[in-house]
């Protein structure tokens, strides 16, 4: 046991002794969370997603654009909720399909989160109230009287002044859809967590390769220390780094940026299991690669690539179908999905059992494979 501890503490000591490592483990993720946070929360224009196929929906889009804010059209309410829940849009306007008749009541559902609630409501109200409702009246005239559309438009425009202005009532109904407002920094904090934990684990592969290249691994084997203990020592050390980094990101972002990580049991479980997969991946890379420099480059590529594929940068729902299928093989996707449930749906550990099971399965498989390769890499034939 004390030999495992010796190997673990030595690999930790070596890792933490390098200032660059300290920066990448602790400083960099916080910087990124901070910058992503202020980008989404502040300077950049808020974005509205609009659902609905009607002249009213068109008008809302036009008015929002005219107000200098971002606007995207999406297919249905679920998709719109997803956008808002993930923070890719701050509000959604759900407009009924089909153009209304004059005199009809049009109920526009408005879903918003955080700071954007009032900001984006303005254009919608403006849209509904605007004189652009003229076309609706025109259509009503055409369909009830059979008049020539051009004539109808001309006469509607001529009498525009006399058309009764649309009345707008705004009413807040129902419970807030997104439990606990999505704060500035919530967006992206979980993405950075999985991205960096994985990247750091992959980056430790270089130490493993160096240990082997220097002949230290072989020398360890020449002492009365079994291969199993060496493997255990190296694994535990790496796992500790991954968990400590994840914990640090959680605690620091919660204390300083006010990020709410939801059910602590749930987020701890996600971190613990995701770190397991990350650790295995790092050891695997360090066991199959011969050059530490090459492993470093591949580590960064893999870390960022898998992170992006797993939805750490763009929601994976926006990927083409086949890519979405591929993304399901990344641990990132399952961890982010679990965090989404915990953070934005106020879920508990009980609501993420599927994700946890998948992560645990991935962790066991990747770790087993990596240990096999690592063992093979240090024991001569």
């Amino acid at each position, binding site marked *: 046991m004390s030999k495992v501890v010796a190997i673990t503490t*030595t690999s930790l000591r070596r890792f933490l002794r390098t200032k660059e490592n300290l920066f990448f483990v602790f400083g960099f993720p916080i910087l990124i969370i901070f910058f992503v946070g202020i980008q989404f929360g502040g300077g950049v224009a808020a974005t509205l997603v609009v659902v609905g196929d009607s002249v009213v929906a068109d008008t809302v889009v036009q008015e929002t654009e005219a107000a200098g804010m971002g606007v995207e059209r999406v297919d249905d309410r679920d998709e719109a909720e997803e956008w808002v829940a993930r923070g890719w849009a701050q509000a959604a306007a759900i407009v009924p399909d089909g153009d209304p008749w004059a005199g009809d009541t049009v109920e526009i559902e408005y879903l918003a989160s955080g700071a954007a609630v009032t900001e984006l409501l303005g254009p919608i109200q403006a849209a509904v109230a605007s004189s652009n409702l003229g076309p609706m009246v025109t259509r009503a005239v055409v369909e009830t009287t059979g008049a020539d559309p051009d004539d109808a438009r001309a006469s509607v425009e001529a009498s525009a002044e006399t058309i009764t202005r649309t009345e707008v009532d705004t009413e807040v109904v129902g419970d807030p859809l997104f439990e606990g407002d999505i704060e500035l920094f919530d967006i992206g904090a979980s993405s950075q967590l999985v991205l960096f934990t994985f990247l750091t684990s992959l980056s430790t592969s270089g130490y493993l390769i160096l240990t082997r290249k*220097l*002949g230290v691994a*072989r*020398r360890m084997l*020449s002492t009365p220390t079994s291969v199993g203990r060496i493997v255990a020592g190296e694994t535990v050390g790496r796992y500790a780094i991954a968990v400590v980094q994840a914990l640090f990101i959680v605690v620091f972002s919660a204390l300083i940026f006010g990020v709410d990580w939801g059910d602590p049991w749930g987020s701890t479980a996600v971190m613990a299991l995701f770190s397991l997969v990350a650790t295995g991946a790092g050891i695997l890379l360090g066991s199959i690669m011969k050059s530490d420099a090459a492993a470093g480059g591949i580590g960064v590529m893999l870390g960022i690539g898998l992170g992006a594929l797993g939805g750490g940068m763009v929601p994976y729902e926006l990927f083409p179908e086949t890519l979405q299928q591929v993304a399901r093989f990344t641990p990132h996707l399952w961890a982010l999905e679990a965090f989404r449930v915990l953070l934005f749906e106020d879920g508990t550990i009980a609501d993420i059992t599927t994700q946890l099971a998948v992560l645990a399965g991935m962790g066991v498989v990747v770790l087993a494979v990596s240990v096999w390769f690592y063992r093979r890499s240090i024991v001569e034939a």
Partner: protein
Amino acid sequence: MEAVLRCEGLVKRFDDRAAVDGVGFEIAAGETYGLLGPNGAGKTTTISMVCGLLKRDEGTVIVAGEPIDTSSVEERRAIGYVPQEIALYPDLTARENLRFFARLYGLSDRMDERVDEVLDVVGLTDRADDKAEEYSGGMQRRLNIGIGMLHEPDLLILDEPTVGVDPQSRNAILDSVAALGSLGMAVLYTTHYMEEAERLCDRIGIIDEGRIVAEGDRRELIGLIGEADTVTLQITGADGCAERVAAIEGVESAQLEGEELIIIAHNAGSLLSEILVVVRDAGATVKGVNVDEPDLEAVFLHLTGKALRD
């Protein structure tokens, strides 16, 4: 006395080519055994099998009474292995490196004491808390050796421990290795420098192309070639003395070349005084004497038909 290391019939093939082909030897406690051979002779491969780091194709290894193979764990406690390469963490200090390996060797209670002792033996006490990467090559080599003797093993194996070391460090290393045998350790020392083997080793195995081609102490090995010593006398007024010298029992030949009388003789050391008497009686004046014994280099040349160093 029971041998600390006994290995027999060791064979290792890489792709059907035997890198080690039937090597066997024994080392007793307190004895320093040298494996002398050129690069590629199979020294490291032999050692790797002795340490149980490499699977052998044939043969047996017994260290301190216990058989050793790649699955041995506790049995390795009897062995201290100093690899050919500097196998330590460059980003850790000497003390940290020593403590790390001390724990792997299972030295828990005596650890700090032993670490200090070893630092002293390898002369790194002053630099103990500097990172190894800041050391000179010689200091790194010394630390490399220090790690292997931390746990006072029955058998210390040193694989070319002086390669790439400045002469001063090299001397320091050789001195400390010479001291190990007197501590009762069995030492297995590989080298391709014949001076090191001559200076340190009680017995030497000459290894080439995976086979031990000769074994014995220095005298025995040199005796193998049957080549006599060469005695060179710088003399004046030596007319006719060559014949007289050649008549001395044990002298093979004596030839005058200018001012030099070159004498080939077996066991020249013991004949030297007699030779000098004969030369003086012949009326010559001796200005200088040179006795060149044949060395292991010559033995190697004799046995393998090639030079030890390339």
